[in-house]
């Protein structure tokens, strides 16, 4: 009996151990270079006002790789933004937002691109697609589905506009509240980013 079990185990290992996993076969690959005029904005509300904070210019040169496989479309690459670059157009609110986002402990916000719902046809008319990203903020990472508008202009610049509502609580952050909670920031934030890119192919 034990001998049969041993033989079955060996046979199973031999039959399955050398089977190649299903790989993602790249059919076409495109590289997009992110330009410095890319930006990110965050809009939120409190019980007394609204605020709009932005990072007006992306200060690094990174590439995104768009790979079309047999079935799926992978968008890989990431952008890393300095929390210090956030500007709420009011120095006091800017400081408060940076403190809320724990800038001293976690100085960067990272958006890691993962996939697209379809291969974008680059035309002047913005096409609506979706995709998944991982957003890393204040030491926590969360996956979101993002709505994109993709288009190309006359100068061959590719525009990728992404938008998504997130919550402070998604990243284990406490929305600022002052005076015993009499003044409080709502949990929801609307994040939008605009990547201006050039095709490197």
């Amino acid at each position, binding site marked *: 009996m034990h001998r049969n079990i041993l033989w079955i185990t060996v046979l199973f290992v031999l039959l399955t151990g050398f089977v190649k996993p299903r790989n993602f076969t790249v059919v076409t690959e495109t590289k997009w270079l992110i330009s410095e005029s890319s930006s990110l904005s965050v809009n939120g509300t*409190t*019980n*007394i*006002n609204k*605020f709009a904070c932005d990072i007006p210019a992306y200060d690094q040169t990174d590439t995104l790789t768009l790979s079309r496989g047999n079935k799926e479309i992978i968008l890989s690459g990431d952008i890393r933004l300095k929390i210090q670059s956030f500007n709420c157009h009011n120095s*006091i*609110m800017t*400081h*408060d937002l940076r*403190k*809320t986002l724990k800038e001293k402990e976690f100085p960067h916000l990272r958006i890691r691109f993962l996939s697209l719902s379809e291969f974008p046809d680059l035309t002047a008319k913005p096409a609506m697609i979706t995709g998944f990203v991982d957003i890393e903020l204040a030491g926590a990472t969360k996956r979101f589905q993002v709505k994109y508008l993709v288009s190309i202009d006359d100068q061959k610049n590719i525009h990728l506009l992404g938008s998504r509502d997130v919550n402070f609580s998604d990243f284990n952050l*406490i929305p*600022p*509240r*002052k*005076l*015993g*909670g*009499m*003044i409080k*920031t709502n949990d929801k934030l609307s994040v939008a980013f605009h990547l201006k890119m050039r095709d490197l192919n």
Partner: protein
Amino acid sequence: MKKIIVSGFITGCILFVFSYGGLYLAVKYFPSLFTEYFNPLFNSDGSRDVLFYMHAFIFSFALSWFWDRFKTLFKGMFILRGIEFGLVYSIIALVPVMWISFSALDITVAMVSSWFIYGLIQATVAGMVFAKLNP
């Protein structure tokens, strides 16, 4: 001593409703006055909320002792005694505290002025209540 504690507690309850009710209405109807509070100087994680809401009682017990000690100096009707008490408190306590706060912290004149007026009204109301409870 009992009078100090009892009148301090009753005044604390009155000030609690009056102060936080007033603050709630002010935030609701004059929101633009409060935008400056989104400042890292002010606690924002809620960890000190209990201390914030205890302020009415800390204030009323301290003033209750002060009233008991110096009440003979405040003469006239209870309203007049309350106003005089509020002014005395404002001059000897609020003005120096607001002065040092404005000089040391990144806050505006409007914010400091609103704290001064808030404290003056609180002390005046407390003085009127003390004049009735512990004449």
